[in-house]
């Protein structure tokens, strides 16, 4: 099924071709059809917010993009070329980096070790600690990160925001083109959230395609250029942030449609096993509306 009123990619991207583009993607876990015919685009220099209620399939979508597991069907194109991504290494090679919801950091290693984990710089087979440390410092400085005391600190000793910063810094150490952030501000206080959002904006301003998953519509409207709404595993709408208001997004998240935006009425009410429609209220439990 195709979503009738999903805004076309060029409209959402403001005329630019998307860097990363998914068409008709499906993913099932056993009997649960988690992603159904999802279309998704991310544009260079822009923050694309990916929103949706709990269990809508946001994390599943980005894990597929990142090659943690492959999609069952659908097309995946990067920079205009069709690609197959079935392992994190392949995604990394394309320049796709993900900062996961459950931070993928090793507490027993220090900041430098974590930044280079899995892609250590070696010289004659030995770890080149000096080069890694220097590059780590440059990267943190380039992101205007001034809050870590020592980059030889173990990650366990960092605050939530600092850990998030390390995770984000790791995603831009490499010549990354797409950075995907899964709820980077979920556990953060006001000041730290602000700092991370600034960092997210800076990444996009540096020309990266940034995908931001968030339940916090304040955050979304603060930094996003376009908004993609997943509803029960289907892409309800992909719209420019300036062209919708908060209420419309809330309706899209909770009901799959808002006015003439979103899924058709039949689609919006269709449910798949294990998932529930929520047509009653405009405010979903986890959606912040103000």
């Amino acid at each position, binding site marked *: 099924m195709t979503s009738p009123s999903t805004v076309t990619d060029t409209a959402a991207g403001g005329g630019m071709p998307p860097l990363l583009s998914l068409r008709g993607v499906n993913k099932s876990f056993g009997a649960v059809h988690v992603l159904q015919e999802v279309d998704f685009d991310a544009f260079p220099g822009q923050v694309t917010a990916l929103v949706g209620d709990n269990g809508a399939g946001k994390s599943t979508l980005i894990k597929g993009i990142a090659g943690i597991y492959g999609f069952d069907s659908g097309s995946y194109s990067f920079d205009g070329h069709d690609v197959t991504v079935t392992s*994190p290494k392949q995604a*990394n090679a394309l320049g796709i980096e993900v900062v996961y919801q459950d931070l993928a950091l*090793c507490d027993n*290693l220090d900041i430098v070790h974590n930044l280079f984990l899995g892609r250590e710089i070696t010289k004659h087979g030995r*770890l080149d600690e000096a080069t890694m440390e220097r590059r780590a410092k440059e990267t943190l400085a380039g992101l205007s990160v*001034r*809050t870590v005391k020592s980059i030889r600190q173990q990650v366990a*000793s960092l605050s939530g*925001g600092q850990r998030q910063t390390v995770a984000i810094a790791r995603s831009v150490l490499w010549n990354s083109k797409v950075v995907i952030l899964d709820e980077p501000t979920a556990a953060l206080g006001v000041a730290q959230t602000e700092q991370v959002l600034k960092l997210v904006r800076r990444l996009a301003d540096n020309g990266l395609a940034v995908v931001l998953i968030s339940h916090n519509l304040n955050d979304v409207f603060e930094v996003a250029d376009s908004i993609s709404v997943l509803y029960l595993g289907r892409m309800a709408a992909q719209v420019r942030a300036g062209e919708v208001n908060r209420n419309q997004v809330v309706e899209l998240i909770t009901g799959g449609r808002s006015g003439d935006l979103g899924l058709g009425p039949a689609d919006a009410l269709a449910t798949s096993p294990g998932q529930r429609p929520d047509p009653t209220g405009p405010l979903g439990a986890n959606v912040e509306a103000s």
Partner: protein
Amino acid sequence: MTTTLAPEEIETGTQPTIRDAVNDYLSRVRGGDVGALPAVLGLVALTIVFAALRPTTFTNAFNFANLIHQSAALIVIAMGLVFVLLLGEIDLSAGYAAGTGAAVMGIVLTRQGQPWYLAVLAGLATGAVIGACIGLLVSRLGIPSFVVTLAAFLGLQGVLLQLIGEGGTISLRDKTLLALNNNNLPVWGGWVLFVVVVAGYAAVTFSRATSRRKGGLHADATEIILAKVAVLAVLLGAATFFLSRERSRNAAVSSIKGVPEVVLLLLVLLVGLNFLLGRTSFGRHVYAVGGNAEAARRAGINVPRVRLICFVMCSTLAAVGGFLLASYDNSVSPTTGGSDTLLYAVGAAVIGGTSLFGGKGKVMDAVLGGLVIAVIINGMGLLNQPSAVVYMVTGIVLLVAASVDAISRRRAAATGRV
């Protein structure tokens, strides 16, 4: 992030003074990062106690050399276990892997009449195959290592019995293998080894500090490095001097002096494995898998492969430990590597500071912990204590070590170190 530091407060290339280094170390210890400290203190305390209780027998050169021979196998098996413990896994079969490796070596040597190096290769290959089987079952099928290695513990006990035969022994007659854990280097050889080790250590630490300083990075102060080198030189110098004295009761008939040959093997393993764990990507990946396997996987690390290699390392090193046991006993029997070998080896790694929770440990831990256990066994023996007491004391020491591990983890969690 609520307190934003000024940029100049980020760690810069400024060189720390000795006082900074000492303060830093003390705050690390207070924060729960005790490292090798408990094992070193334990070793010193035990040595003082036994030396006071048995001034002549415990401290004489003969006993000192004997201590090294006794602990060598334990240390090597514990070195292998460090790899598995770092992953947060366990290998209960390492003791019988040692026995089986030694048995295969002995059979190839005596029943097949092959030269010693082929026998050693066969023994090593046996260890590697055992480790590969365990590693595959753990990493591919996802069976808990406790269960897999418990099965291997039982199975290999049977294999060993089958190979050697009920009540049988294979006696070793090969000179090279007997020399391995019985003979000594010539006195001059011991001193050459001493110079090489101290000079090598100094060269490596100095060149690392210099290159770091050149790159504008934090490095240990020269005084600190000099102090470390001096401490190492004094300790090793004293040990070498002690071992270079005549320790034969009847020197006219046969002279026994010099650093045991097995020390050379221990040093090579220590340096090599330390390099592997501390200075290569593979080593870094081992720590990462032990710290957070999911994070390691997402970082593109081949987690099953790392697990497999660690189990292969463990069983192969266990086989080396088995050769040392066989060499010390001049024979292989169905009990080689049996009874308490495995438990002592795990105890050694833990007493040395390797965490049973994974992600924390060093090869050096095996050496320190192995020495602690050997000193207990040896000293209690000299005190004519029955086995019952030796077991109880060893049990208490292990419990203390495990408590230190758990407590330091809690402190570490409280102060944000792991």
